């Protein structure tokens, strides 16, 4: 008998087949138990389990979110350890080594902070960080993060859909793309002295991508405000694209008619496309994108796990690219 044969019903993740109420119910139960509702004797055990889901540092200001109702926003995969997610970062403004940002980003001042929203919008505005924090209710979103370098993490972000902001500034008919500009201040960012990229860091999305509910403007992770090395005080998170598309420490959001020239396209257009959707079938010229190593999960000698089309978010975002040749628009 063939038990393992794929009959076209193989789902990438349990979260996409288990009814939401079932797996959400478990955490709710744990939370109730932790609160003591299920008896004092069990509370300690439950509190430990509930806490283990998202282990925060307790060093930064707490930032609470409610459970996101957006489809696909909460993977049930185990979150990456806080220590790994905050010590292994690509943030070239603080140096090109992945240990640099955690070591040198202390010089970044995430407050006061403003974000200029401008370009093809009816209501351009310079937002203060405090105003942005209150624009929409904070949501918990647990996303897979796939780096173009072939490793991945699972990060519990806190933030709200970028669409909330976009609706408020009312894009005009000319707005086809959204450009994100990161801070470029030599006094705060030692990495700017190197000419690795053409500063400031610029990223971009098509307007419909930016409007997708999964596209997140994140202010926190692991129940706290963003650590500097992760892009404080606010950053983009686009979970179906390679990590570099998710611009950090954003100071400007521009609505434009033409496809923005992003920092990585300027640096090496043949290696980093504007779309940069996670795609196991399109190799980076220097390495295969078919597999990935999950940080902190996969053992040293374990085979790498297969990378999923659109990082597993195909059911939610696939229709954005209907009819597009994703080998050409990589």
């Amino acid at each position, binding site marked *: 008998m063939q038990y393992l044969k794929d009959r076209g019903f193989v789902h990438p993740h349990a979260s996409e087949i288990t009814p939401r109420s079932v797996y959400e119910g478990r955490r709710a139960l744990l939370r109730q138990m932790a609160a003591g509702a299920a008896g004092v004797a069990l509370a300690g055990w439950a509190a430990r389990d509930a806490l283990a889901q998202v282990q925060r540092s307790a060093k930064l200001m707490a930032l609470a979110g409610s459970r996101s109702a957006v489809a696909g926003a909460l993977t049930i995969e185990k979150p990456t350890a806080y*220590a*790994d997610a905050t*010590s*292994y970062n690509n943030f070239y403004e603080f140096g*090109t080594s*992945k*240990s640099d940002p955690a070591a040198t980003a202390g010089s970044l001042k995430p407050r006061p902070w403003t974000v200029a929203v401008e370009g093809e919008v009816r209501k351009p505005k310079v937002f203060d960080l405090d105003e942005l924090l209150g624009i929409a209710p904070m949501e918990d979103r647990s996303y897979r993060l796939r780096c173009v370098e072939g*490793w991945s993490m699972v990060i519990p972000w806190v933030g709200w859909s970028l669409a909330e902001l976009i609706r408020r500034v009312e894009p005009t008919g000319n707005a086809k793309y959204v450009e994100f500009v990161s801070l470029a201040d030599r006094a705060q960012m030692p990495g700017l002295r*190197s000419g*690795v*990229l053409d500063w400031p860091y610029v990223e971009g999305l098509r307007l419909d991508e930016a409007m997708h509910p999964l596209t997140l403007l994140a202010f926190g992770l692991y129940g706290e405000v963003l650590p500097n090395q992760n892009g404080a005080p606010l950053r983009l998170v686009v979970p179906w694209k390679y990590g570099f598309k998710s611009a950090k420490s954003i100071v400007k959001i521009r609505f434009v008619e033409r496809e923005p020239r992003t920092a990585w396209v300027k*640096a*090496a257009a043949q*290696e980093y496309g504007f779309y940069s959707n996670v795609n196991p079938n399109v*190799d*980076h*010229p*220097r*390495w*295969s994108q078919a597999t990935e*190593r999950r*940080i*902190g999960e996969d053992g*040293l*000698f374990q*085979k*790498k796990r297969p990378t999923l089309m659109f990082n597993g978010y195909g059911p939610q975002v696939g229709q954005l690219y209907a009819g597009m040749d994703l080998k050409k628009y990589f």
Partner: protein
Amino acid sequence: MARSPLLHPAAKPLLFAACLLPCVWLFYAAAADQLGANPAEALIRSSGDWTLRLLCLTLAVTPLRVLANQPALARFRRMLGLFTFFYATLHFLAYAWLDMGFDAAVIARDIPKRPFALVGFLALLLMLPLAATSFNRAIRALGAARWQALHRAVYAIAVLAILHFFWMRAGKHDFAEVAVYAAIVAALLAWRALRLKRLRQAGQPAPARAAAR
């Protein structure tokens, strides 16, 4: 004149231990989970870094020996060269095992597909005959002149190694470290070229390196 400390009987064992230290540290750190969030990447990159460092040291022996007038330095060249090969092998094994899961078919597809991997692999292949003919009997069997000609392949290896590193870092547009290694290798090779030119002008034959051992 006092005997050079380079001729001390402990000099070679000391150098041997020193060259082994990075490897010992890497194995220890891997076992003790000291390699950060991505130990596989750290192992592959560090073994590559140490290959380059030892390659530079190997190529530095002859210029240092001549410039500092320390003929005894030549005693260490073979060991440094063999350690270069040792770390290059570790580097390849780390890639083959940790990145490719020791799947020969996958490796055979991966290497020719990526120019940077291909030149790195070529450099390793070129090292094989040099490592295999590194003992005294091989020198005698080949004859000093032929042995020397063969071992000039190290210059090609150095160029390929820099190209490998350059192409790898080109993916991230990050050339700061590459520039340092390239400058060192370029200086060491330029010194040899200039010396050869000067000796030729003076009507002398090319320096017999094997004979000077």
